[in-house]
């Protein structure tokens, strides 16, 4: 059987082109791996072997006909279960959508599959992407392949774990406050949130419309760039997607960082609650950049300290509105003994939503209520403007900025699930980027007691290319082995 963990996306495409193996064999290897490891990890809400087989057959037919294969031909891919794909359920890991069958395709998913990827399954998440641990799933938590007693981060924990353990080569996640990058850091994967507007949000069940962005998980920066190539670009179905031209993000990956101006966000490194070994690892990474010829210096983003509070107004406000449609009228969970329409709404929603969803809906509803709007939403928007301005100032002097992705390595399942505020702190470094619409990538920069640490590289708006180049340079320099022991054992077994 093929050892998928040794193959990049390009290796898979080249292997099929050279007829060393078929897309069908790649799919078989992925599902064998899933069979062995999924019971321990629970990365998926639904597996889609038929869809993967159909996609594989298409690729194999193209290969047999000698046609040029698309860039992600035969690449097994996981899809976060908040993105629509016809032939699958899109549950958002919520009871209220447990049986919801997609009737149309999410644009980013469609583009990924059009590029030849094999849809392996729908990945677990915190219900409606509300969380940083994937414990808030109505279908049970996903476990971290590095230590199955620990969380994989969240909300895209399933998408992160299935890549980390090698069940798939790439996956799609969505990131509203760090939901791609933080699980990327906690699972030792490369995880990117593109610039807001770079990738269409159409078909991804909205959490906070002004913050949400779809992005890739991969084993290496190059695969992440390849995925971004395929999913980026204007979509007529998303009015916030932009017409900005899409370069080949793989073209400049090996150009190095000589002369690159790199800013370490010093005030974030001084944040209380940042684990010392994470801080040390990030500082060591900064030193590597200097050694590689970059101009490294400290920079401050003072307004970023308002990020968390602004985010927990804006995010829930938009979420409370976006989740209103789950009312039991047209689809989704509905009580069958409602006495009137109000009773139907209230009980269907009370039964269908989990505690964190209810908490955020209530927070957001409160923040938008008459008499409170200016004090909460209005103030949060002001803070957001300040954060945008601070980043803009920093990018006058620097090409990329560095922060830790997460203040700490993967924590234990249950450790923070009863303390929402502690959980919310997990995203303190990632949230400011969503508020500012900036792209960010988490790239592994070390291990602490056998658990991965992620470095967040922040780029200018629509300059993912420079951000990816910086991430690739560090990756090439560190040559870390980011395969968890479980993955190696799983392959042997």
């Amino acid at each position, binding site marked *: 059987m093929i050892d998928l963990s040794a193959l990049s996306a390009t290796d898979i495409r080249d292997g099929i082109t050279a007829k060393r193996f078929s897309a069908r064999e790649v799919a078989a290897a992925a599902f064998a791996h899933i069979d062995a490891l999924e019971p321990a990890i629970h990365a998926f809400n639904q597996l889609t072997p038929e869809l993967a087989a159909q996609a594989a057959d298409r690729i194999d037919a193209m290969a047999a006909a000698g046609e040029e294969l698309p860039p992600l031909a035969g690449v097994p891919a996981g899809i976060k279960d908040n993105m629509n794909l016809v032939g699958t359920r899109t549950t958002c890991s919520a009871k209220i959508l447990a049986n*919801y069958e997609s009737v*149309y395709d999410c644009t980013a998913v469609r583009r990924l599959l059009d590029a030849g990827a094999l849809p392996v399954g729908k990945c677990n998440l915190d219900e409606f992407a509300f969380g940083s641990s994937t414990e808030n799933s109505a279908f049970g938590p996903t476990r971290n392949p590095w230590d199955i007693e620990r969380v994989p981060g969240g909300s895209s924990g399933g998408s992160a774990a299935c890549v980390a353990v090698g069940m798939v080569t790439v996956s799609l996640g969505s990131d509203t406050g760090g939901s791609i990058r933080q699980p990327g850091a906690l699972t030792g994967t490369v995880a990117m949130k593109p610039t807001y507007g770079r990738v269409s949000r*159409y078909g991804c069940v909205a959490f*906070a*419309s002004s913050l949400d962005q779809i992005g890739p998980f991969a084993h290496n920066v190059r695969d992440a760039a390849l995925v971004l190539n395929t999913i980026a670009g204007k979509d007529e179905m998303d*009015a916030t997607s932009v017409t900005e031209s899409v370069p080949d993000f793989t073209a400049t990956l090996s150009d190095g960082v000589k002369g690159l101006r790199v800013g370490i966000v010093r005030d974030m490194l001084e944040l209380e609650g940042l684990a010392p070994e994470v801080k040390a690892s990030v500082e060591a990474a900064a030193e590597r950049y200097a050694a590689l010829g970059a101009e490294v210096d400290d920079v401050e983003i003072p307004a970023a300290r308002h990020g968390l509070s602004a985010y927990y107004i804006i995010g829930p406000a938009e979420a409370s*509105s976006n989740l*209103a449609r789950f*009312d039991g009228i047209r689809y989704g969970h509905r009580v069958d003994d409602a006495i009137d329409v109000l009773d139907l709404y209230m009980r269907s929603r009370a039964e269908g939503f989990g505690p964190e969803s209810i908490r955020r809906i209530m927070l957001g509803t409160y923040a938008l209520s008459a008499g409170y709007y200016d004090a909460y939403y209005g103030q949060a928007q002001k803070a957001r403007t300040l954060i945008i301005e601070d980043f803009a100032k920093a990018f006058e002097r620097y090409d990329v900025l560095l922060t830790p992705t997460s203040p700490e390595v993967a924590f234990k399942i249950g450790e923070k699930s009863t303390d929402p505020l502690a959980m919310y702190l997990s995203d303190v470094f990632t949230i400011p980027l969503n508020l500012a619409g900036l792209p960010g990538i988490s790239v592994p920069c070390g291990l602490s007691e056998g658990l991965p640490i992620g470095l967040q590289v922040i780029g200018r708006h629509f300059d993912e290319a420079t951000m990816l180049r910086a991430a690739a340079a560090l990756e090439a320099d560190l040559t870390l082995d980011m395969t968890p022991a479980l993955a190696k054992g799983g392959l042997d077994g």
Partner: protein
Amino acid sequence: MAKDRLAEVLERYEAVIGLEIHTELTSLKSKMFCGCPVEFGGEPNTRVCPVCLGLPGALPVPNEAAVEATVLAGLAVNCDIALWSQFHRKQYFYPDMPKDYQISQYDLPFCSGGYLDVEVDGADEYTTHIGVTRIHLEEDTGKMVHVGGAEGRIAGAEKSFVDFNRAGTPLMELVSEPDIRTPEEARRFAQKLRLIMLALGVSDCSMEEGSMRVDGNISIRLHGETELGTKSEVKNMNSFKALHDALAYEIVRQADLVDAGGRVVQETRHWDAGAKRTSTLRSKEEAHDYRYFPEPDMVPFAFTEEWVESIAERLPELPDAMCERFMTTWELPKHGATVLTSDLAMAVFFETTVAEAGEARAKSVANVMLNDFSAHLNADGVAVDESLVKPSMVAELVGLVDDGAISSKQAKEVFSAMAETGEMPAVIVEARGMKQVSDIVAIEAVVDAVIAASPNEVASYRGGKVGLIGWFVGQVMREMRGQGNPQVVNEVLRKKLG
């Protein structure tokens, strides 16, 4: 309700009325935020897609044509067009609203600060200036059908069905200033607005089908008072008559309440056209907190002066200007010009007919249209373009009269036949042998015969009773079965009798 009751109340109280007028942009090809077609009716839930059904993950994309139509409407009622505007979400739960919020506009509408000058005729004809606070754009809801329960309302219904065909239809909302003082002014304002929308071609403005919906806010106060009284809002006024009658009812109801020492309660009331009364729909306590916030799925609109200018260039001739032009170009009296321009189809019909009949016959064309044509439309209950009568027919008819081929009396008969059969007037005249006789020799023969048969009358006439000329004309015309050219008959008679 008796008219004098309203008049009596309005002597003691001043009514303060503001209107909210929703107009569906029915002439657009697609809905407000998706590509589904805009059409009335249809099999339930057939004109829907993930976007207008509010399916998970679907996103709205604004229909630029709807934005342009709204700006056009704003310009037509003298509004300022905002160079920076935005959609907001208006949030409340209702089963006909798929997302449980309506994409609407809040503090940044496309148009604001306009007005309409409205003519009110009658004994004391006057013009009143009514401010237009704003015009904004939003999406319409679906439609519900309730089975069982009272009055087709959701409360108490056994079953409810939702049809989302209408959901997402572009809906323009105009809010007037509370400058309206009588139900008649309100009706005139709404009618004028409808004419403008029809001229702009943005909507079919059917109050019956709900593509134009008028709600009124009414309060009363003593004359000279500057504070506003407590208002009630009246809904379900599905015709201009209903608008007038409901407002009149509400003014009198409020006056009666106050006269009896009571107080008007702020509430929404429902007009029942059958019972001719309003009743409470919901009280202020049940009013929603809509939790408006900027729609994050769309970026704000930044217009340039040049863009607004380019929309303004698309403004067609509006009813007021057209009426003015009809008066000056065709020398029509104000009343005639107003009637002809109060319906775009009527105005187009008139101008097409004049183009065919010749400009010199404009007044004759106007006369036929204001009399025979209008009467026929009313009597047969048809719209201008549904009538069998076409401009070419009216042009020919006017020509026949002008050329003396038929009398104006005969023309009325020909018109009726035309309206019934759709045949050209010449064909009807021919078939009925109605052609007017202007041949002097033929007329002289009849005149001679009449004179010979009426020696007494001839003697009287010649003796000075010249008024008898009418009697002689009548005799001749009777002999000629009405086909004699009256002018020629008159001339010949005077010559022979004189």
